C-alpha cells in the first residue's frame, strides 16, 4: 500500500538564490498524524505547499497516495483537505454559505450541517464570516477543508494566534479526524501542539530535516527526560564552571543562556543535591532553581542553539 504522502530529495530555490527547502525526504503513512516542527522561516510552509501541489519544487518527487501532481491533479484533490496559513475567507458570506461553496467543489462532500456540528459552529451557521472571532474563523477554515470528506488533511500552522481554548478545540477536531482513519500533516512552531497531536514529527530548520521520530524518541535522544535550570551569583557560565556542572552525576548535557544554566538530566533527585554542593563550593549563591520535563523545545535548542520561537 502506498504511503499517504511521500517526497524524495525535495528542493526549492527562489530566484536561484534563496534555498527554502534543501533536500527533504519524508514518508507519511496512512492514518498518521505527522508534524513539521520548526521556527519561522524554516521552510515548513514552502514544503507543505509543494506537497499540496500549490507550488512547483525546483527538484524532487512528490507522491500523494501513490499519485503524482503531474497527472490526475483534479482526482488527487478530491482526497485532500487543505487549510492554508492566514486565508481570509469572504466576509460577506455566512458560515453555512462558505461551507456549502467549498462542498460544491467536491464530488461527494459531507453535509454542511454535519460539518457545522463537528466543528461546533452550529449556532453561528447563519452569521457572517466577518463577525466571527479568531478561533471561530480558524474552525471555519478547517471546516472548509473537512467538508470534502478528505483522506488527508493538510494544516499549515492551524492554531497560530489562537487563545488556549480555541487551540484545544481544534486539537480535538484534528484528533477525531484521525480516529476516523484520516491522515494529517501539519506544520507548527508550537512544541506543545507537536507533542500532543503528532505520532511522528520532523524537526525542520533552514530547509532541512535535522531530526525525525516520535516525540518521545526525540526527547529520548537528549539522553535525559528532565531539565534542571538554575541561576547562580558570580560566574556560573564560564568554561570551568560549565565543566563542573557537566561532571555532576546524571547530567547528559549542559547549556547556558544569559546566565541561566540548563542541565539535561536523567533523574533530578540524583543531580540536585550534588549541584547545591558544587554551587556552594564555587562560592556562589543559588538565585533560582527549577526542574521540569524535557520538551521538544529543549530538543530543538540542543540541536540548533536557538529557540523555536524568537521571544
Amino acid at each position: 500500500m502506498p504511503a499517504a504522502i511521500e517526497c524524495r530529495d525535495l528542493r526549492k530555490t527562489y530566484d536561484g538564490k534563496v534555498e527554502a527547502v534543501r533536500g527533504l525526504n519524508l514518508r507519511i503513512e496512512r492514518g498518521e498524524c505527522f508534524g513539521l516542527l520548526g521556527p519561522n522561516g524554516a521552510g515548513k510552509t514552502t514544503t507543505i505547499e509543494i506537497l499540496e501541489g500549490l507550488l512547483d519544487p525546483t527538484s524532487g518527487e512528490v507522491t500523494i497516495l501513490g499519485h503524482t501532481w503531474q497527472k490526475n491533479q483534479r482526482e488527487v484533490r478530491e482526497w485532500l483537505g487543505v487549510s492554508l496559513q492566514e486565508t481570509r475567507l469572504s466576509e460577506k458570506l455566512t458560515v453555512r454559505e462558505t461551507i456549502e461553496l467549498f462542498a460544491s467543489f467536491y464530488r461527494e462532500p459531507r453535509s454542511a450541517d454535519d460539518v457545522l456540528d463537528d466543528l461546533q459552529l452550529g449556532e453561528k451557521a447563519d452569521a457572517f464570516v466577518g463577525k466571527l472571532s479568531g478561533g471561530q474563523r480558524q474552525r471555519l477554515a478547517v471546516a472548509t477543508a473537512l467538508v470534502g470528506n478528505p483522506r488527508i488533511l493538510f494544516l499549515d500552522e492551524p492554531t497560530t494566534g489562537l487563545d488556549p481554548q480555541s487551540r484545544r478545540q481544534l486539537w480535538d477536531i484534528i484528533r477525531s479526524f484521525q480516529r476516523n482513519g484520516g491522515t494529517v500533516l501539519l506544520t507548527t512552531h508550537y512544541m506543545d501542539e507537536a507533542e500532543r497531536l503528532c505520532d511522528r514529527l520532523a524537526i525542520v530548520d533552514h530547509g532541512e530535516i535535522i531530526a525525525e521520530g516520535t516525540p518521545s524518541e526525540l526527547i529520548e535522544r537528549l539522553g535525559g527526560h528532565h531539565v534542571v535550570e538554575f541561576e547562580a551569583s558570580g560566574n556560573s557560565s564560564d568554561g570551568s564552571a560549565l565543566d563542573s556542572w557537566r561532571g555532576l552525576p546524571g547530567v547528559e548535557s549542559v547549556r547556558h543562556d544569559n546566565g541561566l544554566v540548563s542541565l539535561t538530566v536523567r533523574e533530578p533527585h540524583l543531580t540536585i543535591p550534588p549541584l547545591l554542593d558544587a554551587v556552594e563550593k564555587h562560592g556562589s549563591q543559588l538565585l533560582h532553581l527549577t526542574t521540569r520535563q524535557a520538551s521538544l523545545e529543549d530538543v530543538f535548542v540542543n540541536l540548533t542553539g536557538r529557540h523555536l520561537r524568537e521571544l
Partner: protein
Amino acid sequence: MSLAQETPATPVRPPIRRNGRWSAFSHLVTVRMKELKREPEVVFWVFGFPLLLALGLGIAFRNKPADVTFVAIVQGSGTQDALSLIERSPQKSSIHAELLDKPAALKGFRLGKYDLVVESDGKGGFQYLYDPARPESVLSRAEVDDALQVAAGRKNPLPTSSVISNEPGSRYIDFLIPGLIGMNLMNSGMWSIGFALVDMRQRKLLKRFVATPMRRSDFLLALAGGRLVLMIAEVGLLLGFGALVFHIRVVGSLLSILILSAIGAVGFAGLGLLTASRAQKIESVSGLINLIMMPMWIFSGVFFSYERFPSVIQPFIKALPLTALNDALRATILEGAPLATQAGRLLILVLWGGISFLLALRWFRWT
C-alpha cells in the same frame, strides 16, 4: 487499473450527496451575486452613479429655447437709437441689451458677461466690438446686426421660411446615454473582475480555491456569467431611465442592444482579467486599472464627440475598445443599425477581449 479502483477502499466518513458537473459553477455565480448584494457601496457605484451622472448632465445640458445673447450698449449719442431698433426687431426676445459706460462695458465684455459691445460711431451708425475666438460673440454680432438692419428697414431679396425640428435623437442626452452605458460596462468590467481577483489573490482565497478540485475554467466562467447577469441590469436601468425621464427613443431592438452589450461586457472582462493576472496588491492593480481607463474616458466619446480631436489621432481613438463600443451602441440605440453593420467595431471588441484573455491565461498567478 483505473484510478477509481486504485483509490483507498473506504472514505473517511460516508458521503451524503453527489455533486453534478456544474455544482461548482452555479455556487460560484450565486455566491458572487450574494456578495454584491450585501455590499451597498458597490451597488451604488455600479447602478446608482451612472444614473446620477445621466440625470445631472442631462439637466445641465438640456435643450433650452434659443440662448439669449447679452449685449452691452455704450452710453452716448446713438444709444437711444440702438435700443429702440432692437425693441422693434423680431429678435428682441433673444437679445438682452444693457446700457453701460464705456469702461464698464469693456470690462464686462472681457469677463464674458457680455458677448458683444455696441457703440455709436457718431455718424448715425454703429461699431461692434466682438471676439472672433468666442462662438457666442460671433453669433451675437451676426444676430444683433441682423436685428438692427431689419428694424432699420432692410428688405431681404430672397424669400425664405423656417421649420422647427425638435425630435429626440439629436439632443445631448441622446448622445450621452449610450456613452454612459459603454463607460459603465468598462468600469464594472475592469473593477469587478480586475480588482476582485487581485483582492482574492492577496487574501490567499485564490490559492485556497485552487487547492480544491474546483476547475479553474469554472471559476472564470462564473466570473463571466456574473458579469453578464449584471450587464443586463446595468443596461436596462440606464436605457429605462433615459426613456422614462428624458424620453429617449430607443430605435434598435432590445436583443441587439443586449448582444452588443454582452460582447462589450465580456471584452472588458477579458481586459480586467489581464490587468489582474500578476498584481499582488490591490494598490498596484488599482493604479493599473485607472491608467487603462482614463484615456478612454477622455478619448472614446463618452461625454463629447471624439471628432473634436485632431484627425491624425482619429485612427488610434477608433481602435480603442470603448470607442468601438460607444459607436456601436449609438448606432444601435439611436439609429437602429443592425448588428451586421457594426461588425468592424464588434471585431475590435472581440480582439481586445480575446487577446487579453489568452495572455491572461498564460500569465495568471493562481497561487
